[in-house]
């Protein structure tokens, strides 16, 4: 059974419809890339999964539980770990404090997070606001991991970062997949890097899922039709 399953999900921002029928599945230990051009509903889908935005129609199941009436904190406690677009660390808290604020019991603790991102150990007492963009992104991922999620949702985790930092983030995602076997739903535009970690891809267009398949099946024709600007 899938860990996460969306069935024909629709959602609105006030009266404006943003999702018109999104269906996707993520199995335990699987990395799924959520792709699409700008404004096609990728972040909205992530928000709907995390219950930041309540969907209108369709079903969202996490580990067999219908998230229909769940508030976002209850959904998160089931095992959804969100790394939001734009990082959004708690700026006036230190690295250690950011991680402590989110911590829940489990195998992911401060030691394990700094094994994944050694830079955070050096910066542990530094305010999040004073970190570089790459370090803030590592902190945002670390904060999500401290909740000991079963599914990590990465929304544009490498956006706006220098190439060398992006490589570090992709290496960490790859390490997460290989060593912890964590399920990951990742929104990103870097197909080359996604190809190294993603098992499957789902493409959204105008708020609907229009293509789903293995990453190998993502041919030039498909990307040209759905992803090229």
């Amino acid at each position: 059974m899938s860990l996460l399953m969306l069935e024909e999900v629709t959602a609105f921002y006030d009266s404006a419809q943003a999702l018109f029928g999104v269906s996707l599945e993520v199995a335990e230990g699987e990395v799924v890339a959520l792709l699409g051009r700008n404004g096609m509903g990728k972040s909205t889908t992530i928000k709907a999964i995390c219950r930041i935005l309540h969907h209108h129609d369709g079903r969202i199941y996490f580990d067999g539980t219908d998230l229909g009436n769940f508030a976002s904190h209850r959904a998160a406690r089931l095992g959804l770990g969100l790394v939001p677009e734009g990082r959004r660390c708690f700026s006036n808290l230190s690295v250690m404090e950011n991680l402590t604020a989110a911590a829940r019991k489990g195998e992911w603790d401060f030691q394990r997070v700094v094994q994944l991102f050694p830079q955070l150990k050096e910066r542990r007492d530094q305010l999040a606001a004073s970190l570089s963009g790459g370090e803030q992104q590592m902190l945002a991922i670390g904060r999500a991991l401290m909740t000991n999620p079963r599914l990590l949702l990465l929304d544009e985790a490498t956006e706006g970062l220098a190439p060398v930092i992006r490589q570090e983030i992709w290496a960490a995602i790859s390490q997460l997949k290989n060593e912890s076997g964590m399920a990951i739903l990742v929104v990103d535009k870097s197909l080359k890097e996604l190809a190294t970690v993603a098992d499957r891809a789902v493409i959204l267009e105008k708020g609907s899922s229009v293509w789903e398949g293995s990453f190998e099946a993502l041919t030039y024709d498909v990307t040209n039709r759905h992803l090229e600007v």
Partner: protein
Amino acid sequence: MQREKVINALITLLLVVMPLWAWWADEPFILTLLTKVAIFALAGVGLNIALGLGGLVSFGHAVFFGVGGYAMGILASHAQSYSPIMEIPFLIEGTKSMPVIWLVAIISSALAALLVGALSLRTSGVYFIMITLAFGQMFFYFTISWPAYGGEDGLLIYTRNHFPGMNTLDPIQFLIICYAILGVVLYFSARLAKSAFGLALNGARQNTERVLTVGIDTFRLRLVAFIISGAITGLAGALFADLNRFVSPSMFTWQTSGEIMVFIILGGVARLYGPVAGAALFVFLEYVLGDLSDYWHIYLGLLLLLVVLFARGGLIGLLAGREVAHD
């Protein structure tokens, strides 16, 4: 941060040296002023948990200050008149014991905070301010129309309540009690701010959504903070009533809520010693400017305006820099 610790240590030193000097110079009035500083600071530390850590601009903390005060007044007045508070269904008598009074003040103000918080925390911004303000006014008018406990005239307590092994009528001994409580509460507040609870509360002030998505119920988080905040302010109310040996509906007025907020703004919002510095400055100004004019609040208002415009970290922020607190 290091500078702030030095400033906090200097304030502590000053608060220790001044009463010693006043005691040596036989200046009981100065001791009473310092006791007032400690009690006001305690109320400020309470509000600082809600306002500084949680970003909850409560204009109703006079409710908890007043409930604490009335807890003391009711218990002590029944003890001094040898009449029970109630006989049916079971006997409850008054008491002059400070520890018992504090416990009742803490519990009753925590319950009041639960009631106020459970309703007001469903709103935010200006609506939250207005609801907390409305609760303050409700309690104010309730006590005015409560003749059993003095109504508008309030309650006079003839002697100060007792603390085992101490003469509470001696100004220095009562000051030591207030200092000890302030010290314990400051320590608790510092620990709370660095605990996972305090950090999450701080995070929720910055971004509620982010805290929700790590699995924390921000309503419950803020409600618990509001209750702790109210309980501490209630304890300050009980001590204030004991200092004056008098309680009246004026403890519930919106001016009281405003003054507690002024202590924090003057001293520094979210700074551990902000309420202490603010309360000390407030009492000092009240004493010095009050001698010059009955309308000394005009000068206080001017100072507050300057602090808000040019020193948003308050007195502590001005001296220590702005890196830790939110302004």
